[in-house]
């Protein structure tokens, strides 16, 4: 039997017709599209707002504040909803969330993507976004870690993080970078992100790398089971402790200063907010090392710069059931955080005044 195993793969082409080929292709495409559409109805959307969405929101509106930060900044979409409902749409908050975070990436986004819109003027010479008063920078310890030089690209002030091309660049930024550095693994991330954007309506393409579709298909829910959640928390506890030597990278702290300075240059009141942590992920050692180091660095910078600083790490009303994973909130958590923030530290957004 094994004497007859073919010695050539793939086999030579078998005769077929154009009609057959087109039928196969059409039914294959129809299958993919059909399943994609079915999944989009069957499963909750896994649409995660990205930088481009925040920039588009800022371009379309005249908000009182921009909330800039990592993926956790998405929580503030709920703040925008509350304010818009209360004010009949007069008071809005634009949310610019950067997947995979990093303060230096946020500083880049502020300077390159947001600043032109903030400074945009009408025919009368006045700023188009005249309501804009505040820049709220939402961050946590993760954002301050030294970007791995193998992942990013060394720049003049450290390492430009790996998420910059795929999450924050425009096509012009990509072209400029290729012209300067050649097409490499760093700027290639822009092409990968552009490819995914081509199929932006596809729930299958959007979910790649997140795995949320499978969870919904298998278990009928977006959230992890309690057992999975606790297992993930266990795993994160050690990594947060181990990150103590890596937080407060000088380049990232300089980026935080740049954010503050640039916000002021733009006539905005900067505010620094430390996002609530899922306290179950924090060992006592992590609290005393990783978290304390970052708190002290951020608070110290805010104090020297004279900007409001709110540390929500331990003080929020959020509990385990409000988190969908080790660090991000579920819908209930977003709503709870929004209500609590607007009733307390972010109350100034309601009256739109500079704090």
């Amino acid at each position, binding site marked *: 039997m094994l004497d007859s195993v*073919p010695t050539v*793969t*793939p086999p030579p082409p078998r005769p077929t017709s154009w009609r*057959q*080929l087109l039928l196969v292709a059409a*039914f*294959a495409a129809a299958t993919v599209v059909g399943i994609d559409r079915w999944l989009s109805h069957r499963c909750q959307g896994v649409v995660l707002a990205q930088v481009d969405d925040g920039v588009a929101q800022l371009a379309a509106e005249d908000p009182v504040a921009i909330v800039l930060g990592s993926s956790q900044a998405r929580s503030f979409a709920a703040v925008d909803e509350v304010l818009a409902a209360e004010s009949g749409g007069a008071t809005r908050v634009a949310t610019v969330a950067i997947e995979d975070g990093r303060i230096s990436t946020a500083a880049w986004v502020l300077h390159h993507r947001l600043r032109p819109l903030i400074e945009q003027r009408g025919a009368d010479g006045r700023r188009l976004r005249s309501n804009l008063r505040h820049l709220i920078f939402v961050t946590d310890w993760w954002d301050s870690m030294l970007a791995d030089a193998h992942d990013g690209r060394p720049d003049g002030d450290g390492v430009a993080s790996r998420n910059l091309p795929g999450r924050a660049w425009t096509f012009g930024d990509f072209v400029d970078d290729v012209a300067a550095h*050649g097409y490499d693994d760093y700027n290639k991330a822009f*092409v990968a992100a552009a490819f995914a954007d081509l199929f932006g309506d596809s729930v299958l393409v959007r979910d790649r790398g997140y795995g949320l579709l499978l969870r919904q298909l298998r278990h009928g829910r977006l959230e992890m089971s309690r057992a999975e959640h606790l297992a993930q928390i266990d795993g994160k506890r050690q990594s947060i402790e181990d990150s103590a030597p890596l937080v407060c990278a000088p380049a990232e702290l300089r980026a935080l200063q740049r954010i503050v300075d640039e916000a002021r240059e733009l006539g905005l009141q900067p505010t620094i907010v430390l996002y609530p942590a899922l306290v179950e992920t924090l060992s006592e050692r992590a609290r005393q090392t990783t978290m304390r180091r970052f708190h002290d660095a951020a608070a110290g910078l805010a104090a020297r710069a004279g900007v409001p600083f709110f540390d929500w790490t331990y003080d929020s009303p959020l509990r385990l059931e409000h988190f969908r994973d080790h660090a991000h909130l579920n819908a209930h958590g977003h709503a709870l955080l929004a209500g609590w923030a607007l009733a307390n530290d972010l109350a100034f957004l309601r009256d739109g005044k500079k704090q």
Partner: protein
Amino acid sequence: MSLCEADTFFFLPLVLALYWLLPRRAALQNGWLLLCSWVFYASHSVPLLLLLVLVTAVDYAVGLGLGAGRARRPLFALSLLVNLGLLLWFKYSGLLTGASLALPLGLSYYTLQKLGYTADVYLGRRPPERSPLRFATFVAFFPQIIAGPISQADELLPQLERPRLLRPELLASGAAAYLLGFVLNTFCAHYAADLVTDVFAAPARYDGPSCWLAAFGYAVQVFSDFAGYSLMAIGIARLLGIELPANFAYPFWSRSLPEFWRRWHITLNRWLFRYIFTPLVTGSGWFRGRMALAVLLVFLASGIWHGSTLPFVLWGLLQGIGFVVQQRWDHGWRGLCRRDRRFVGWRRTAAYSLAALLLTQLFFVATMVPFKAASLADVGVMYQAMFGLGGGGESHLWALRAIRTLLALAIVAAYHLQALPPLQPLTTRFVRLPAPVRGVVYGLLVVFLLIYVPPGSSTLIYQNF
């Protein structure tokens, strides 16, 4: 750019669209292919593209000079010097200088492809290629430049002389080959690696069965990675109306090492035997008739081609020794057959076949250890564990519980099973199913890949060689 990253899905449709919209003239098609191939290569490095163009020009000129009959030996020596010199410099200068150079992408492959051409012209097997366009396209053809398959001049150059015609069976089989290769390269290789990485990273921690599982997993990973990539290359070439040679042919059914090396990385081994082994044993030099030594030399060369470190040399040596032992066994068995006809029958029994299959595969799996291990010390640690002379206490067998890893192994097994004669009709039956049914199956496969293959999961182990 590789053949399965996001940028390829922008690049490839553009290449195909213009290629088939051009007038059906070989020169136009070759010109477009060459431009696209150089863009493909430049996406990795523009300076190294210049190097590629330069060495292409050298071998083009050498070929013409050989054809003109002038200074044949010095010209061939020049080609050897330039090609092997570059290859040796980039791959092995680090051993002398202590600072290793980044290997130009595809250097190991296009060097052999060009050297094969100049050798064939030198030996009078083929006339020199007069068209610089065709020759440059032959060298730089983008589906194969990174990691083969390595074409012989007589396979590819004649195809480039003729205009390629668009036929539906080429698109159908090309797309199918690409899709199958994509599954192997991005899914199977990715999840097979779960059996491998932890153990090879810290072999002293793990017990014998875990080390065997890691070696087995690595064999599957390398096969999936490289055979998958080869299928993608062959598939893309078919979409362009060009046939590349097969590079893998169900190697896990091999019942002897000679058979294995006729089924695994076929084009490299073909090159080594055609241009090193055969001239050695049939030439007038010292190696004439010394088959065993020539085999050892060939596999040592293969090991060194893969890498400059001692584990690769050990790997080559082991393969060579195994090959020679196999040849001695076969020779001895033939002697027994001549004395007693019963040995002829016994060799044809299922038990003999099964024993031969298991021994061959076990040998290959065991020799995957030096192929992957970081050092000879790690090789020793793993072999001690594998052969019951030591080993750590930790087990990694739990990695087999992962559904996706099992599915990856199942796909590779199914790929091999469908090649068996009793099951080959299944493939024929599938091809004869109504087009809508086949379309739905392919669509489901694409959905499977979108769900289970995260971005960036493709690697190409062999592009590092």
